């Protein structure tokens, strides 16, 4: 069966232990999390979580149902893949003590519409935002320059137009 990458987005009670219970559910039932992102909403008692998973349709259905069953999960939706915008952000620190490397880094950051957050004699920290595949591609491009470290946020996503969670 086809195991494509899917995005599940859900509202939860914004209180201690909920993130544990959600990840505990995924662990216990053997669902693999590819990425997870969480943030509070305008109502401070609520938070929105976005999880990307690789699963066939049967498992995906179980993930949605099992999440929905949790007392602290208020609303769950598998986002419609063709009507969803999804983004993640990466912070990357590049080795740029060599002027050639620095030039190459700046060129790449520019072409991926990145921002430069910090520069010193040895390194640059850049911020790049985009779809997961684009971030992967960017990392591949800059890896010959020398990546000192990086950190990705995981995917966050919204459905287009009238669609709501």
């Amino acid at each position, binding site marked *: 069966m086809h195991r494509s990458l899917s995005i599940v987005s859900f509202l939860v009670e914004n209180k201690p232990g909920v993130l544990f219970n959600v990840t505990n559910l995924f662990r216990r039932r053997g669902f693999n999390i590819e990425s997870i992102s969480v943030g509070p909403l305008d109502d401070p008692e609520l938070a929105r979580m976005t999880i990307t998973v690789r699963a066939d349709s049967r498992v995906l259905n179980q993930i949605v149902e099992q999440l929905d069953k*949790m*007392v602290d999960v208020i609303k769950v939706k598998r986002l419609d893949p063709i009507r969803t915008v999804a983004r993640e952000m990466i912070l990357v620190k590049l080795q740029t003590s060599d002027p050639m490397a620095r030039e190459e880094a700046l060129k790449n950051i520019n072409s991926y519409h990145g921002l430069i957050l910090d520069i010193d004699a040895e390194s640059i920290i850049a911020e790049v935002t985009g779809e997961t595949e684009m971030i992967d591609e960017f990392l591949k491009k800059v890896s010959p320059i020398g990546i000192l470290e990086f950190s990705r946020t995981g995917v966050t996503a919204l459905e287009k137009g009238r669609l709501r969670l």
Partner: protein
Amino acid sequence: MLRISGAEAFVKALKREEVDTVFGLPGGAILPICDALYDSDIRFILARHEQGAAHMADGYARASGRVGVCLATSGPGATNLVTGIATANIDSSPVVAFTGQVPIPMIGTDAFQEVDIIGVSASVTKYNIQVRRAADIPWAVKAAFYLASTGRKGAVLVDIPKDVQVSVEDMEFPEKVSFRGYRVQEEPDPRELDWASVLLSRAKRPMILAGGGVISSNASRELVALAEALMAPVATTLMGKGAVPKDHPLYVGGCGMHGTGEANTLLAEADVLLVVGARLSDRTTGLVKDFSPNAKVIHVDIDRSEIDKNVETVTRVVGDARLALVGILDRLRRIRLESSGDSEWVRRINELRELYVMPEAKGNPHMRAPEVIKALRRSLPRDAIVTTEVGQCQMWASLYFDSYAPRTFLTSGGLGTMGWGFPAAIGAKAARRDVPVVDIAGDGSFAMTENNLATSVEEELPVIVVILNNRMLGMVAQWQRLFYGRRYFGVELGKAPDFVKLAEAYGAVGARPESLEELEREVRRAIEVDQTTVIDVPIDPEENVFPMVPPGKGLKEFIMGA
């Protein structure tokens, strides 16, 4: 508004839930609550190990349909409850467990008897709560009872730090609690009922599989009415036993790994299968692709995550089992049934029933387990409650003990917890003083929680334990005989203990009958004298439970003997 301590508010909140009995064991971190209970009329049943307390609460809940309550201290008290909580939760039994906890400032310091019971119990409860303020206790108790007893019922744990029990605050007792993320759909969607009814009305060979949900929602009467309207045979899962009286002509017994030949065969032949309140576990379905392969499956369950989890369905009805059955019955009365009473199908039930009568074993000097169970049945009133331990004794009880009413056959189905039956029987007795309660036990299982003899005797909750004593961990031994070339490993229990002397040591009655007649006499006497009685029945150490579907096989491939 009342200004009282957390512990006093706790007792008041229990009273508001009409709690009459609490099973437990005290300890340091729950002392303020014990002290508040001292002044109440709630009966406290002292277990000798917290696992027993949890099973007692579970037995109380299953026998009565009310929430069972257990209580323990922090640390080891709390972790000892865990097996009992898990057992109740997987079988959707409404149990609320209260644990003491070290004072809030000490949480996270690895203090004496500190265990993160919230983390530990997360996977085996429906919900858990750590109370952080005394003023939240009334809400937490109300919430725990509400969650445990609604929707798909289950176990809820409430952890109460000691300083929270002591703290005096203004208390408000809510009439209702709600959770934004917890909605129970009791009333089924009419369109789902329409679909289910149309499918059933067109069936040539309809069949019903009833699970524990039928008992939990008190839907036995409606289930029988539907079966009669459709002339459909009814099988039960282990948890559904008792939902249909054994002597009903459409009842074909349990299905699954140790189901009856007729139930497992009919499942393979049915063209429409209505599953009601069952989660279709591996023990029930056998190899999933061969489970009722010719049937369109309709699944009724209050927990929508169970539908299509293990078995693919054609249509679903999400909602309370009783309301769903009423809805389907109403519709069937309006639709003209196209195939009701298909005489061929009904004849098939009786044909198979006669075909799969177990052969008598000849020339064996031992009492045979099925005969022991039948003799026990003869000596009990129709409404007696039976609990079981786990293993061969449980499967023999499932196959050969005739149950006639819901809540009279109680067993650890999902978790298969050895040692469950005896404390659960004590809990059931606390709920139902009016009927005899019998634990059908094996020697291995009974030994796991036999210390509860003290509770049964001291608390005057007399139950009868009938031990099918093969001096073996019998089911494991059976698998080793059948699938591991008789290489016995870790299953031979030897002669210890002498269960008659053990019973006597606790002040209970012990007996070792040498014939079925003697067994019946002992059971009748135990009922009459109303004393805790252990009846030790020696059986053949190598007797097998049949029929059996070998692991990994389809239900139709059951074997009747080795």
